[in-house]
């Protein structure tokens, strides 16, 4: 086993890793069953404005729509699930004392921390992919397929994506979701390298994400001016792949900003950890 494999193995050998998967499975199943039972109400609410002017035919409330709906609802909550592992992956070694065995072996601290970071990203990707698979599979089983109607309520926009384009768009959207969640994972990871316990990094990351979200949503000019610089603003990059036309320039800018966050956060974590005295 190489370092990365070891870290992934360790991560997926702990029950706390599966909290996120269990939570997501529960939420997805509950949401989809409830949506199935209240399909008419949801459709009416969703299409209220459109139905004033248009007759709407076809399977609007389909598996793809459900997937986008759940993603839209959960993309603010997934960060908290990510931190459970990302905030723990380094600090837990200090808590359990295993760091004293791990860091006296030949692999350098840089190699160890890089492997841990990659394992964190792997877990992050696994959570998002799991969510995607759950939503899509269950959605298609319960609601069938069809074109995707994205209702951007806050912008008062409805985007219509033909069924043939959806699989590719969904793939890109989930890839983008992984990309944005990687920033949250990177924050938690950095905190994890600074701490000797897991609670601090988890709570610290949650605090950062919440504060940034709140600042980004305040309807005041001062905060609005800050919005483009907040990573949380760019975390909905995934939604842009479900827009028409796909705003590639915006996506590239957001992706670059998110990547920059990841790089800087990891670089700080690397520098800190290389020089850290292991006293635990």
């Amino acid at each position, binding site marked *: *086993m*190489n*370092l990365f494999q*070891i870290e992934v*193995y*360790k991560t997926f*050998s*702990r*029950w706390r890793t599966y909290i996120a998967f269990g939570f997501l499975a529960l939420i997805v199943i509950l949401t989809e069953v409830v949506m199935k039972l209240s399909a008419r109400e949801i459709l009416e609410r969703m299409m209220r404005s459109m139905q004033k002017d248009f007759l709407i035919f076809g399977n609007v409330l389909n598996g793809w729509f459900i997937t986008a709906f759940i993603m839209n609802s959960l993309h603010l909550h997934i960060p908290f699930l990510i931190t459970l592992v990302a905030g723990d992956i380094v600090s837990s070694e200090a808590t*359990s*004392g*295993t760091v*004293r*065995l*791990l*860091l*006296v*072996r*030949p*692999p*350098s601290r840089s190699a160890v921390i890089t492997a841990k970071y990659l394992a964190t990203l792997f877990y992050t990707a696994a959570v998002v992919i799991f969510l995607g698979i759950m939503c899509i599979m269950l959605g298609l089983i319960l609601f069938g397929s069809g074109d995707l109607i994205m209702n951007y309520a806050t912008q008062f926009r409805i985007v219509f994506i033909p069924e043939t384009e959806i699989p590719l768009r969904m793939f890109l959207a989930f890839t983008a979701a992984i990309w944005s969640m990687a920033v949250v994972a990177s924050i938690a990871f950095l905190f994890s390298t600074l701490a000797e316990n897991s609670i601090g990094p988890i709570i610290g990351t949650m605090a950062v994400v919440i504060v940034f979200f709140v600042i980004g949503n305040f309807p005041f000019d001062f905060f609005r001016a800050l919005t483009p610089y907040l990573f949380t603003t760019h975390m909905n990059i995934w939604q842009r792949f479900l827009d028409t036309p796909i705003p590639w320039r915006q996506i590239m800018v957001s992706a670059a900003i998110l990547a920059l966050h990841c790089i800087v956060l990891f670089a700080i974590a690397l520098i800190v950890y290389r*020089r850290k*005295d*292991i*006293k635990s």
Partner: protein
Amino acid sequence: MKREHPSGAGTKTGTHRRMKQETVLRTSGLGKRFGARWAARDINLEVHRGDVFCFLGPNGAGKSTTIRMILTLLLPTTGSIEIFGKDLHAERSDVLSRVCGIVEKPDFYLYLTAYKNLEIFGSLTRRISSDEIMEALDIVGLKSRAFDKVKTFSHGMKQRLGIAQALLTTPEMIILDEPTAGLDPQGMKEVRELITMLSQEKGMTVFLSTHLLSEVELVATRMAVINHGEMIAQGSVAELLEQEQAEYSLRVSPLKTAVKLMNGLSWVVLRPDEKGATRVRIDSGRASELIRFLVMHDIEVFSFYPHRTLEDFFLKITEGISEI
């Protein structure tokens, strides 16, 4: 200020090893400061190949700090470390592939099995086969628990698992920080036997820290003494523990007759002991003479062993230094 015994290797080391005197670990002016406090200062260790080298000192003396620097867990504030003639920080990976270290207690991943833990830690050094893992577990008596999770292990079992981990990577030098701390007498005995085995059968150099003087006498060939962060002595165990007069505990029968007989000897100073035994203070070289004397007078000698405390030893060492 420290006393150095350049003769090096002790009595338990083979002649060929004494001849070679290859230094496998050398620290020069090693120091670590936390804030304003020096946890270790100007540590100059020299460990030779084949040594069972004890790093002796009371709790808080700076033993763990020094070991953590040697194992790269702490960055030294001053000084340098050479292992196998190579600078540790310049050639860390190469050096540490030939060293195994256990700091304080070996903490494993509790949620994994003993086997998986060994596989993980072993593979950090080299590719490890399943047979090698099982063999290492067999040596430390944990083969039957190979696939049990470590969270079900006692402290002693974890210590043995730590040694199995050391065996697995076949290091040239093994560094153990207080390996018997927290163990019951049986556990301590087992660990000491394993240490002796590592040295004598596997030919490993063993560097271990302890605050137990008796442990030094039982396993070590060479030793260094540290107190308040500073190294105060280094040399062979035989030389450092040699004293002009030593105190011995004596269990004999009949006690009254023995005491009466020994009272007649001018070179024996008797000290009272309330546990059916007695203590005597004699010149170190006359221990065998006293035993012979008692046996010749039909006194049964059940036990006769040197009775020394770390405090006595430090006092002696310190006195020695002040004399120098």
